[in-house]
Structures are given as C-alpha cells and as structure tokens.
C-alpha cells in the first residue's frame, strides 16, 4: 500500500529537510494525542508515591519529589485491604468460571446451529441498564438473606460476563471448520465429544481472551457491588469509594489504592489486547 501511493505520487522528491520536519511534526502530534491518556495514569502513580505535603503542594510537583511508600503501607494498615482484594478475586473468578461453564456450550450451539434468535436475546442483555435488574435482585436477595454473600455477587456479575463470553466465543467457534465436526461425528463422537474434544481445544486462545475480559469487567464492576456487597464481601471498587467518603483529603493512600486496583487489570489487558475491541463491541468490530 505504501509502495502503491509512493508510485502514484507525481512531481519531484521532497527535500530531505522537509521530510525530517514532517516526521518530527507527526511525532509531536502523536505525543500530543497520547498525552492525556498517559498523564492521568502518571498522575495516579506519582500521587501515590508522594508525601501528604508534596501531594498538596501548589504549584504541583510533576517530576521532582521525594518518593515514599508510606501511602501503600497506610492502605494496608488502615483497611482490611487484603480482604477486599480476596473478595474481588473470588467474585471475578467465580463469575468468570460460571460464565464459561454456562456460556461455552451456548456459544457452541449458536455457532453450530445458527441460533440467531438466541444470540440476539443475549445481545439485548447488553443493552438493558444494569440498574433495572438491581431493584428486584436487591429485594430477592434481601428476602433470602443473601445480601453480602459471594453467591449473590457471583450470580449478578454473570450479567456482565455471560453475554460477553457468549459473544466473543461465537466469533471464535464460527471459525472452527465444520468439516472437523463432521469428521468427528462420523468417527462415532457424539456432539458432546465434538464440543469437548474438538471445538474447545481449538478455541483455547479465545477462551483465554473471553475469560480475561469477563474477569476484568467483573473486577471493575461498581454498581452491583455497591448495593449487594456488605462488610464481608465488599469488593475493591466499593471499598475505595468508601475510603473517599470517610477520610479527609488524604490523597496519597487513595491514589495508592487506585493504583493497586488498576494494576492487575492493566497486566491482564496486555495479554488480550488484540481481543479487547472485539469484546467491547460484541464481535461487531473484528481486528
């Protein structure tokens, strides 16, 4: 493509100086476009490493400040932070595992037998505002004395993960050649054998991507947890939200907590970045 446009370009070659100026200009534009993204993360991490005095210093200190890890120690000392991490882990992993167990066979079925109605019904679940489930759930779980239990949180987080898993997996399973299925069927495999021994092993990278996406969005979920979690099951986003309310302006520990919540998500994202947009658009945009 580059060659094609180069060949089509008429007129004399640009002078070398002009080309250098253009590259520098382009590089500056790219940096300017990425600056807001980078700055917010940079600010989060640096605030978490500043002392109280430095963090509240004005004008703000951008590069030169004394690094301290006090804020991180504070977060653990003043809150049962490890408990919150564990709660978030249990809920995100639990809902992802349940979502895979239920969603993989459904995605296989939709891809294999072209069950478009079912696929559409699952897409509707992506459109419905989460808060409209929350009222009945709250009443139901309150009645069952299940508010503040892992089970309630895992079940409700399925609303986030299950549609995502199904739609991402439909895309992967559609790419498995039907001939492979048919060959296995002729060899005497049942559909269950085809699913388990042919399809699932072939789409393992897809399962990995779907699982990580589901984990991330459950980890990040605030709305369901703020209503249905309690002292025993409070997940990280809710715990950090409560830290804002009950402390005065102590930015360091808050920034430290924010950094620690975000870090695992970023690490996981690096593993699946090729699939993020496909996942976020439910397969409408392939990359």
């Amino acid at each position, binding site marked *: 493509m580059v060659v094609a*446009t180069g060949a089509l370009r008429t007129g004399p070659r640009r002078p070398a100086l002009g080309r250098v100026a253009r590259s520098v200009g382009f590089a500056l534009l790219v940096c300017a476009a990425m600056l807001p993204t980078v700055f917010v993360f940079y600010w989060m991490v640096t605030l978490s490493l500043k002392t109280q005095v430095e963090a509240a210093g004005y004008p703000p200190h951008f590069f030169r400040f004394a690094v301290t890890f006090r804020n991180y120690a504070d977060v653990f000392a003043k809150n049962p932070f490890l408990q919150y991490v564990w709660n978030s882990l249990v809920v995100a992993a639990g809902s992802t595992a349940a979502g895979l167990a239920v969603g993989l066979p459904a995605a296989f079925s939709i891809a294999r037998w072209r069950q478009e109605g079912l696929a559409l019904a699952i897409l509707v679940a992506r459109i419905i505002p989460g808060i409209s489930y929350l009222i009945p759930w709250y009443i139901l779980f309150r009645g069952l004395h299940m508010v503040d239990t892992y089970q309630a949180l895992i079940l409700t987080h399925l609303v986030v993960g299950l549609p995502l898993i199904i739609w991402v997996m439909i895309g992967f399973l559609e790419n498995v050649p039907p001939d492979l299925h048919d060959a296995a069927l002729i060899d005497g495999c049942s559909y269950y054998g085809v699913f388990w021994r042919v399809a699932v092993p072939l789409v393992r990278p897809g399962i990995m991507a779907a699982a990580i996406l589901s984990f991330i969005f459950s980890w990040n979920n605030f709305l369901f947890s703020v209503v249905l979690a309690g002292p025993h099951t409070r997940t990280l986003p809710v715990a*950090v939200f409560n830290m804002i309310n009950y402390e005065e302006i102590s930015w360091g520990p808050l920034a430290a907590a924010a950094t620690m919540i975000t870090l695992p998500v970023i690490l996981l994202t690096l593993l699946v970045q090729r699939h993020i947009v496909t996942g976020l658009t439910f397969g409408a945009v392939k990359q």
Partner: protein
Amino acid sequence: MAAPGDLGARLGRAAHRYAPYIFPAPAAVTIVLIIVYPMLYTGWMSLHEWFASSLSPPKFVGAANYLRLLLTDGRFHEALVRTLYFSVLVVGAETVLGVAMALLFNREFWGRGIVRTLSILPMVATPTAVALIFVMMYHPTLGVMNYLVTLLGLPPQKWIYSSKTVLYALAAVDVWEWTPLVMLIALAGLAALPREPYESAVIDGATGLATLWHITLPLLRPVLVVAILFRAIDAIKTFDIIFVMTQGGPGNASETINLLLFTQAFSYFNIGYASAVAVALFALVLGTSLVLMKVRRAAWS
C-alpha cells in the same frame, strides 16, 4: 439384549437429537433467572406503590407512577434532559476526536504498537479508580487541572464543584475513557477500506482534504455507526464516574436518570416509582439503539 443397555442407547440417541436444545439450556435458564425474571418483576412493580423500608405490602396503583413521571415530576424531566445532553455531548466529542486520532494513527510508524496498547488502558482501568484520580485533579485549590488551566492563561475553574461546569467536567472524564474505543473501531474500519477509490482520486488530482471528506468518511460511516451505537447505549447508562465524583450534585446539577433511579430505589426505597423510572430508562436506551440500528441499515445499503 439387557433392558438397561436399551435405555442407555435410547437416552444417548435422544441426547444426540436434542443437542441443539441441551447445549444452550444452562445459559437460557441463567438468563431467564437473572435477566428476564427481574425485568418482568420491575415491570410489575412499576404499577405499584411500595416502599421497601415500610412494612405495608405493595399497593396496585395502575399507571399512576408513569403519569407522575411523564406529567408532574420536574426532577425526572430535568434528569432526562441532562442525560440526553450529556450523552450527545460525550458521544459527539468522542466521535470527532476518535476519528481524528484514527486518521492520525492510520499509517505505519515506529511506536504504533505502544500507542495502541496505551489507548486500550483508559477503557479497562477501573472506573472507580479513574473517577477518584479526576476528583483529585479537579480539586479547586490544590488540583493539577487548575494549575494547567492557569498555565494556558485561563481563569481557574470549579470543575465538578459548580453546577455550571459539572456536566462538562464529568463529560471530560467519559471522553478520556472512551475516545480510544471510537479510535480503535475507526482504525479497524480504515484498515478494511478498499483501495480503488483512492487511486482514482489521486489520478483525478483530488486534494487530501477532499479525499477525506468525499471518500474516507462516507466509506467509514457504517463502522462509525456501530461505534456511536455502543457509545450511545453506554453514555445514557453512565453511572460509576458520576456516582463516585458528584453523586448527582452539586444540588441536582449532575443527576442523570440513572442517578435519580439509584436515589429513588436505594436511598428512598421508593421501589414502585423507581421501577417506573427503570422502565423509562430501558425504553430510552432501547429506542436509541433501534434508531441507530436503522441508521446503520441505511448506511449499509
């Protein structure tokens, strides 16, 4: 042949024949339990008056909640206008910025991979954490935003602490989070564009801007509609950042429908009325998606 073997074989054949129903059954049951049943319940409760905090049972009131919502509740009307304004604002800004960035990045250059990776991070970073950092950055006296603004020679702002600027300050956070999605979708669209129109445009001597306006953007439209569709659905439902940063304040200045709904349901426990608001919000999101899907179909044909 023994009977149990027979039974086993028959079960096996049935399992094979009904496989298209058995495979999706667990997912279907789950969806009915956690999505369909709650939706029906919400619809039913919206016809009642009931406070979850009181001991009296729900009282059937017919369409009274909806009449109040449509005719008399000024707070709901304000929230509706605010929601639409906020959504149009963020989706518009994200579309323009996202497409501009995609056009900028749509070439081979050193560091393209890093740019892509960085662009993904705002979308996946925990919204609560992001909101928290913006609260600190927006602080009127100590925040870095006012420092940056005064560097540019502008007067310091009150950001989320003034009812005049709060919606824009919140919109900026949403734009920060989601512009990359539009950009990545547009980039995927640009990568899939056919080459021929460009080659004939070059032969015809069209300028870069004319090519952009008359070829690239029209060709990109179907993809952009998808991006706008996803963004619009989520913008109307924006909750986390508003709840964490302002809880709808100052006053009601950033109270969108979602925030109003949350307050009605979980602060006032006004379940009947909140359910009606939930149905209205659902209708708004569904209506928006249907309109955009129609536009998409028109764009394809």
